[in-house]
């Protein structure tokens, strides 16, 4: 017992003195992944992060990227800011050349550091929407529809559902009362002016476990034609339950990306209860993709059984999608560099030249087109609807009010 303890201390001391583990090898790309597996967003983290690992393992099994192996270091920050800072520095020390962020406050606290350290970071579904402009934030890559693009998509979907004209219609915007929840507001206001609909906002304060009064206000006073819900955590499921209880048709409602995972539907009382509810997605839903089957086969070949993370396909596929974008960037960087050590700057260019992803992702990924000016890759979204006990694809990939969103991004970045 004592000897074991001593050796433990010895290793720790050696670690401190040597400056950590061995540096990255030549033919290896190290990626630092931040995650929250223990904090308030663990329900996402415990699915998304394992999915990301599975995909990277699959890529390595296939032989790596252009002969390079990928090594992922994951650090859990419990949705707290100081551990996220520590994680970022640790990644740097371990030779990481790119990272993925998890959580808006953590991303914001590190925004400056990413630029200073020339470390590309991906922030699908969380990043500040202004970061879609690559000229302002050189190293931040939302890689998926930002909240502004999602809002555009949601309004476009509402327009299609309401007969192609929003003039005189009423749209209720239910949002989580934090900066992320308020982010779509300016775009919504612009679109309301453009399309001539009336918009009213209904804020759901954290933790959002109870919203009977707001729902009552929506259903008996405002009586909207459509609801856009931008909710997090437990709030989406409570909203679905309450609105259904008050007799609002769920078909006239769309939830943005954090309001539409399996967990939300289950907590709302199961797929039967949420029939008709529309969700906006930045990655495909379900297990009918070649890459998912490959991952399952890989696990089977290793003699493992697929874990619980496979049950939540919405979040799982987002992890896979994130991995695929990373791999595409790495492949581009290696091809452009033709040997030698890949740096963060190479990877930035790699990200900015992404036009195709791993073909095995098939319909899971949007038709992403990244460029130096567009770090969002087009802002593509899909609508999936709960029908007959499962998610059913309602629309293919589309962009909502791309011009309005783009103009808004430029306006926002010119202001600062």
């Amino acid at each position, binding site marked *: 017992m004592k000897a074991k303890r001593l050796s433990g201390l010895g290793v720790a001391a050696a670690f401190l003195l040597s400056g950590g583990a061995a540096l990255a090898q030549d033919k290896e790309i190290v990626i630092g992944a931040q995650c929250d597996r223990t904090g308030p967003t663990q329900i996402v983290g415990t699915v998304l992060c394992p999915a990301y690992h599975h995909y990277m393992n699959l890529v390595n099994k296939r032989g790596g990227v252009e002969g390079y192996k990928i090594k992922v270091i994951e650090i859990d920050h419990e949705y707290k800011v100081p551990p996220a800072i520590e994680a970022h520095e640790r990644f740097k020390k371990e030779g990481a050349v790119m990272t993925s962020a998890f959580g808006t406050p953590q991303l*914001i*606290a590190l925004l400056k550091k990413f630029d*200073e350290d020339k470390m590309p970071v991906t922030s699908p579904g969380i990043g500040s929407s202004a970061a879609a402009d690559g000229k302002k934030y050189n190293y931040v890559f939302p890689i998926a529809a930002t909240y502004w693009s999602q809002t555009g998509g949601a309004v476009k979907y509402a327009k299609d559902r309401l007969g192609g004209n929003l003039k005189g219609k009423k749209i209720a915007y239910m949002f989580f009362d934090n900066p992320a929840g308020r*982010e779509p507001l300016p775009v919504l206001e612009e679109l309301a002016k453009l399309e001539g609909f009336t918009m009213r906002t209904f804020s759901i304060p954290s933790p959002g476990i109870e919203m009977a009064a707001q729902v009552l206000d929506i259903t008996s006073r405002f009586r909207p034609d459509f609801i856009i819900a931008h909710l997090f955590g437990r709030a989406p499921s409570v909203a679905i339950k309450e609105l259904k209880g008050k007799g609002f048709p769920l078909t006239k409602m769309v939830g943005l990306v954090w309001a539409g995972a399996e967990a939300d539907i289950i907590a709302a009382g199961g797929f039967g209860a949420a029939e008709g509810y529309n969700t906006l997605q930045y990655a495909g839903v379900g297990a009918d993709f070649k890459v998912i089957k490959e991952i399952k086969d890989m696990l089977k070949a290793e003699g493992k059984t697929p874990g619980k993370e496979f049950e939540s396909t919405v979040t799982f596929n987002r992890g896979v999608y994130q991995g695929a974008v990373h791999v595409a960037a790495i492949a581009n960087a290696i091809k452009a560099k033709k040997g030698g050590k890949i740096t963060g700057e190479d990877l930035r260019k790699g990200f900015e030249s992404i036009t195709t992803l791993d073909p095995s992702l098939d319909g899971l990924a949007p038709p992403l087109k990244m460029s130096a000016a567009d770090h969002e890759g087009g802002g593509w979204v899909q609508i999936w609807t709960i029908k007959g006990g499962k998610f059913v694809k309602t629309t293919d990939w589309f962009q909502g009010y791309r011009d309005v969103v783009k103009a808004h991004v430029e306006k926002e970045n010119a202001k*600062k």
Partner: protein
Amino acid sequence: MFHREAGNFKTSYAADMALFPLPITKYTAGFLLVLFFLIVPQMMHEYYLSIFNLIFIAIVGALGLNILVGYTGQISIGHAAFMSVGAYTAANLATRLDLPFWVTLPAGGLMAAAIGMIVGIPSLRIKGTYLAIATLASQLIIEWIINHTPAISGGASASLEVARPTLFGLELSSQGELYYFTLTFAVLAIIATMNLVRSRVGRAFVAIRDQDIAAEIIGINIFKYKLLAFAISSFYAGVCGVLYTYYFGIANYEAFQIGVSIDYLAMIIIGGLGSILGTVLGAVFVTALPTFIRLMVETFGGYIWDTAQLSAVAASMRLVIFGALIIFFLVVEPEGLARLWRNIRNYFRTWPFSY
């Protein structure tokens, strides 16, 4: 450090209250200053300096909380709110008026102190648990106001970017450069606190903590000193918030939510209430221990779990072991790490002739 007092005789009250009661403490302090200012930044990898930076900033905030909770006996669960007050004050001054950090930093502290005095008013009527919950309410109300006032928070995203601090034209941006920035303020905070607690004000605080009615009888104006304690404590918190702001390069209230208040409370309780050494130890414990636990699990867990599982296990173990250690320390030594350290020192003071 381990030293003996034999041969040192104090002949006046002034000597008894001196900052360095013994010559050896002066040498120890000098040694530590040299170690941290000159040797550590040269020897350590930047990663470790980043942990030191987080610890140093935490020390400033925790000292402030300890003045209020440990020395004056007024429980506060709203410390992080004052950090955000300081952070946004400094960020607004820095972005709108282009003021340098040596103006915005005290300004942030003073603003936090002013708000802290207002929050401290209920402490005149209530104490203990009720005060704790009142400060919790203040935390949520301050958070709410910042969240809903674009004039303070700088718009919907509630974050304000600030430029890196510059000193004599030199921009402090890397962890190594920021190290000196944070260390300087940590040292200043420690010295200021040491001086405060051995002054008339500090003794008044302790008197209020120990028995407020008796304190009033001996002529301490409780109204004034309780508010002063809140103001000083919030000043530290405000400065801590400004340090975070410059360290991150951005002010964002989501970095100062209720969980942060609880973390700081954990620091001083684990470290030791009413002890400066304890505050420092507590800040180290709470900031670095989770990292250390994770490191251990990563190092040894590799034999049991594969890498994918290890990430999950390391994350959970970190939280579980951390929680268990808090409870363990509280049960074994409720007076904190500082007391544990004193026990060890007392043992060695007379060693090997303990009897």
